[in-house]
């Protein structure tokens, strides 16, 4: 059963990964390449050619999709399915996708938003990695708390009001901007026009939102397909005894 869940997560991951790979190939690579033309000062001091960087980045995108598909929609979905709020199976997939986005990107971006190439950042790489990891932890924690509060409120109010429970759960995300405010300020200077920088940030954010949306949609579709097929080969453990005594 666990293996089936992980396999299904991997399938959803391939769909999401190919979509994200296409995004990098068609949007990410050309946009970053264009933004780099504004870097006058230090010539492109890369150890690899642009083609290699482009291809490896696309492959990396596909790999990231498969990896997150296996971990989030395979293993985590398997363990948390009994407690995921939602009611319908689709909602569970989308909630998990939203939690994934908040944890991996949304929460860390509150402290360290995406940057265009060529910028100088005042914080060192080590400090930024530490804060990125910390914000990921805070994001995951707030998602978990939101789920817990939702369940508690649904039980408390005798399943009367979804709205109260949803509101209570949403307030749990209020801690994220507070934690982000505590983070040291990261002042940024770069050669890129601010309009282009805004476009790059927005496109990056849309890319991640789209990536998780495709992952969750593919997963929801696969779950629905699996559940609609009558289980011909059930696990030996929970297969009901079919032997009928005459």
């Amino acid at each position, binding site marked *: 059963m666990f293996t089936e869940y992980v396999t299904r997560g991997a399938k959803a991951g391939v769909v999401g990964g190919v979509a994200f790979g296409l995004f990098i190939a068609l949007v990410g690579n050309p946009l970053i390449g264009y933004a780099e033309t504004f870097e006058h000062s230090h010539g492109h001091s890369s150890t690899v050619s642009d083609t290699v960087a482009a291809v490896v980045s696309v492959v990396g995108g596909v790999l990231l999709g498969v990896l997150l598909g296996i971990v989030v929609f395979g293993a985590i979905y398997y363990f948390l399915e009994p407690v995921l709020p939602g009611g319908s199976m689709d909602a569970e997939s989308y909630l998990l996708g939203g939690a994934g986005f908040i944890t991996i990107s949304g929460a860390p971006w509150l402290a360290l938003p995406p940057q265009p190439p060529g*910028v100088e950042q005042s914080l060192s790489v080590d400090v930024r990695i530490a804060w990125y990891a910390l914000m990921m932890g805070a994001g995951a924690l707030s998602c978990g708390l939101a789920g817990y509060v939702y369940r508690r409120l649904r039980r408390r109010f005798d399943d009367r009001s979804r709205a109260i429970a949803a509101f209570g759960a949403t307030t749990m995300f209020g801690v994220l901007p507070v934690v982000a405010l505590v983070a040291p300020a990261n002042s940024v200077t770069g050669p890129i026009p601010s309009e282009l920088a805004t476009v790059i940030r927005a496109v990056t954010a849309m890319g991640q939102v789209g990536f998780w949306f495709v992952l969750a949609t593919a997963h929801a579709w696969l779950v629905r397909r699996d559940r609609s097929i009558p289980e011909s080969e059930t696990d030996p453990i929970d297969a009901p005894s079919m032997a009928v005594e005459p």
Partner: protein
Amino acid sequence: MTTDTVHGRIERVRIDVTPTQLTLMVASIVAAGFVLLFLQDPMVHDSMHNFRHAVGVTCH
């Protein structure tokens, strides 16, 4: 259904998956994640430059 709790699911994995399989799964996922996110070798790091920008993580 016995599998309808998180605890039940964990128990099921203990029955279904051998420790070797589990170790292999975790190891391969950690390895792939490490290569994607933390490998600082200049060749790999530079090749993944656009990828990091597309994901919204920057390292320069």
